[in-house]
């Protein structure tokens, strides 16, 4: 029926990346609580280990691996960095790099991808605006053709990687309305660089977790971009963009699983040692019941996540449909942040007052994982997707 094993390369890769994280990532995570922009040495370390171009075509310097292998990297990075700042940098770059690889023309691919893979620039995603999240078809940002350029006006907000793009170079895969009267059928997906781009004014926001990857936005005032920055065809952006979201959501599911797994391991070590009323608290049934429940959910989440990415890979090979992918991905992401945060929450609870202090490692994961109920698509939307698949398009809400 099913072979649940990873391939030998994937197992070797997991071993290798785990060691890489232990020696190159974990020691660097201490400073992550104090910065609001990913430090360059971390980006370079990820590049050196060939993590930044995993799924991208080797022609541009990538590895061309499958997304399941990228999922392994996401899980391991989350285990190593409980603040999830580094996993977010990884998953955003991977997902949107893939989209540029798939929909970009030769010129833009050669211009953007090799640099990003070497860690010399950033790739991000910018669709959200101050007043627009799920309802993309009504966004403010507009794009018009002007000769052989496009001109963009509007704003984006609650975007990851703005500070990084301003600092290191690179840009964001962006969505804007080309033909407003057509709603979602009149949107363009394009690449928008931030650094040294006239008309871009960045702003920054302090979010409550994943501190080391910046959160912010930018004003877009008459920003001109060359023709070749258009990704795919005009007016079809809304359809393309979902492929990027889906890969990101699949990776997010494994980031949640990785962070929760590590937190649960921390919890297990704690409850074996900490004594109350003469016994280690791990001996009490109440604690054991919780431990068992969370373990089951996290392992189930891992299965949902890897199956979702496997389905994504199957679609690339023509063996699964768009809808198979949407369903599998939505299922994993609909539960990932909740199951993960439940586990992490209990791990903090076991640690009592200490769990409520900044000294406790696990609270970083608690704050980070909370973001995944909304990042790259809210949990509510995930449920609507699942329901749509089960009920049929005629039952789509909000139509």
């Amino acid at each position, binding site marked *: 029926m099913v072979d649940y094993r990873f391939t030998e390369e994937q197992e070797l*890769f997991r071993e290798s990346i785990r060691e890489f994280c232990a020696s190159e990532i974990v020691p660097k995570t201490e400073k992550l609580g104090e910065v609001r922009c990913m430090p360059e040495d971390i980006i370079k370390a990820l590049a050196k280990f060939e993590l930044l171009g995993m799924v991208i075509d080797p022609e541009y310097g990538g590895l061309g691996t499958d997304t399941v292998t990228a999922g392994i990297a996401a899980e391991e990075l989350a285990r190593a960095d409980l603040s999830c700042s580094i996993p977010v940098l990884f998953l955003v770059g991977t997902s949107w790099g893939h989209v540029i690889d798939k929909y970009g023309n030769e010129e833009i691919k050669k211009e953007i991808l090799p640099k990003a893979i070497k860690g010399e620039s950033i790739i991000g995603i910018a669709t959200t605006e101050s007043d627009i999240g799920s309802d993309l078809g009504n966004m403010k940002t507009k794009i018009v053709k002007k000769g052989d350029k496009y001109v963009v006006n509007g704003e984006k907000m609650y975007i990851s990687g703005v500070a990084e793009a301003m600092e290191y170079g690179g840009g964001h895969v962006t969505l804007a309305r080309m033909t407003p009267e057509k709603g979602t059928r009149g949107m363009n997906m394009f690449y928008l660089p931030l650094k040294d781009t006239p008309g871009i004014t960045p702003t920054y926001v302090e979010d409550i977790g994943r501190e080391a990857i910046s959160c912010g936005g930018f004003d877009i005032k008459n920003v001109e971009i060359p023709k070749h920055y258009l990704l795919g065809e005009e007016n079809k952006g809304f359809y393309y963009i979902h492929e990027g979201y889906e890969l990101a959501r699949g990776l997010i599911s494994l980031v949640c699983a990785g962070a929760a797994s590590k937190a649960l391991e921390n919890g297990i070590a704690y409850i074996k040692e900490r004594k109350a009323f003469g016994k280690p608290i791990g001996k009490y049934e109440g604690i054991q019941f919780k431990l068992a429940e969370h373990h089951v959910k996290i392992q189930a989440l891992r299965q949902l996540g890897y199956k979702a990415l496997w389905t994504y890979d199957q679609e690339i090979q023509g063996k699964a449909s768009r809808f198979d992918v949407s369903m599998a991905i939505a299922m994993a992401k609909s539960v990932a942040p909740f199951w993960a945060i439940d586990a992490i929450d209990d791990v903090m609870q076991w640690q009592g007052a200490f769990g409520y202090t900044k000294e406790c490692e696990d609270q970083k994961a608690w704050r980070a994982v909370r973001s995944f109920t909304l990042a790259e698509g809210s949990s509510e939307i995930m449920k609507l997707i699942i329901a749509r698949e089960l009920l049929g398009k005629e039952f789509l809400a909000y139509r």
Partner: protein
Amino acid sequence: MKIIACVKQVPDTTEVKVDPKTHTLVRDGVPSILNPYDHYVVEECVRIKEETGEGSVTVITMGPPQARSALMRCLALGADEAVLISDKAFAGSDTWATAYALAQAIRKIGSFDMVFCGQQAIDGDTAQVGPELAQQLGIPQVTYVEKIEIDDKQKLTIHKQTEDGYHILEAKVPILLALLPPTSFQPEHPPMSSILKAKKKPFNVWDAKTIGGDESRFGLDGSFTQVIKTYTPPSRGECELIEGDGKDAAKKLGEVLLKHEALIKR
């Protein structure tokens, strides 16, 4: 240069702990890794092959089927071919029997210029297999090798560590070298692209019959030493902790040390 590197998969002994209550080894969750000395060896072999321009690096190990992952690691580090000799007949091998089996396998691999091994493995720490293998192959050996250079006439210049410095030696192939990694050595984790390449390289698994030789010299039968007992080392007793703040404690410690006055003053 045809190079053969002997490697070993070992438990990560820096992670092994002893259960304080039962006084037994706690092996749970202790990963099996490529012996760190051997990791350095493979990197050096690959470097030498690349510098001399041609040749090959074959890695070989005697171990259970799981040792495959250590060999895959070596292939990912740049070795060209792997040989795993594995058989229940090898169970209970001491260093002599191990060297015998490796020598048989190396003869089956064919001609070679150099055999490399790590100075020691972190589980046994005997440093014996290298010299015993060299003796059995009938080739000279240099141990505690810190540095190797090869000129285009296959002349080797070797830095051999001594207790108070090092010797610079000149030697020719064939030869066995046991390498010491520099103190700054950190094993580099091969990235995914190397792992993908590793999968495509030749990987041979040979049992006792395939490597030939005298069966009675393998495993326990062929071993001259036997482990008859293992136990945890005896404890030294309780530690007396000196209380008090920094200066106070220092004063009390001073009094303890002054009991050894004769020793201190000499």
